[in-house]
């Protein structure tokens, strides 16, 4: 996913992410907090997996989008944007996702031209949920970047 509109929107201090249909489904918005990009997923009944808990898939979806948008926001300005796609995603679930808002952020371990390694965390800040010190889940994600005009076929095209 690479849309110049999205990259431009992410430079703002906060906003919604409705240009990404799946982010709209999760009702996501973002906030710039210092150097970090935070995604906020408000609680909604449609996020429930087992009674009273968020679906693990929705938590994973939030972590993947936190990683994806962090990678897009980290691309140098003024260049053509690559398509960013997750290739491997490993999620550890540490605590139950309670029926309350969740907040996710990601950090880039290594920003390469073709591969970006990312760690993402999600936590809950409402009363008794432990906040950032007690993440409910974390993900390790490897993204591959596909650059326009950088197609280098491994073998000659037929």
């Amino acid at each position, binding site marked *: 996913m690479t849309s110049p509109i999205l990259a431009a929107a992410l430079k703002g201090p906060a906003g919604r992410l409705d240009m990404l*249909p799946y982010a709209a*489904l999760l009702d996501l918005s973002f906030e710039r907090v210092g150097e970090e990009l935070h995604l906020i997923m408000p609680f909604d009944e449609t996020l429930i997996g087992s009674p009273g808990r968020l679906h*693990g*898939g929705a938590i994973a979806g939030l972590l993947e989008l936190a990683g994806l948008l962090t990678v897009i926001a980290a691309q140098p300005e003024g260049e053509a944007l690559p398509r960013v796609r997750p290739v491997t995603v490993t*999620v*550890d*679930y540490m605590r139950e996702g309670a029926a309350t808002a969740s907040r996710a952020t990601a950090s880039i371990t290594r920003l390469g031209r073709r591969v970006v390694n990312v760690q993402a965390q999600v936590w809950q800040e409402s009363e008794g949920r432990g906040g950032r010190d007690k993440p409910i889940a974390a993900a390790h994600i490897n993204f591959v970047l596909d650059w326009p005009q950088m197609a280098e076929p491994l073998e000659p095209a037929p």
Partner: protein
Amino acid sequence: MTSFADQVGQFMGPFIGRVPHNKRLGLRFITAGDRWVELQLPFAPQLLVDPDHGIWASGPIFTLMDTAVGMASMLARGAFEPHATLDLRTDYVRSPRAEATVTARGECYRMTRQIAFVRGLAHDGDPADPIAHVAGTFMFAASKLAPGWQG
């Protein structure tokens, strides 16, 4: 099929599609065996991350696989006991075709007293040409074990 799998097909199969988040995505039950299950996620525009290029978000595919392997672990357990996902790794082999229905098959290949070891794959028509693979573990709090499994 075991009698428990029959029960799953008759009663819990439809239930899968009524779990609120599964229902929101449009996920549906197809079939199940004694320790595996097949689910489907039909295409919907709301599942895309890049509508300009018809590219699926990976989250809905993760959710489909999580649900399939979670249900497979309950089938292998032989009971609907509370359980929690410990970890899940998904390899996205390729993107689904733009408006494809994605099918996931999840299985529990090993059950111990506390841990279910699971794996699965997702495809968009041909299981030999998968779009994603998953491997993970679920944790059961109780110590009950289905007959035939070794702790």
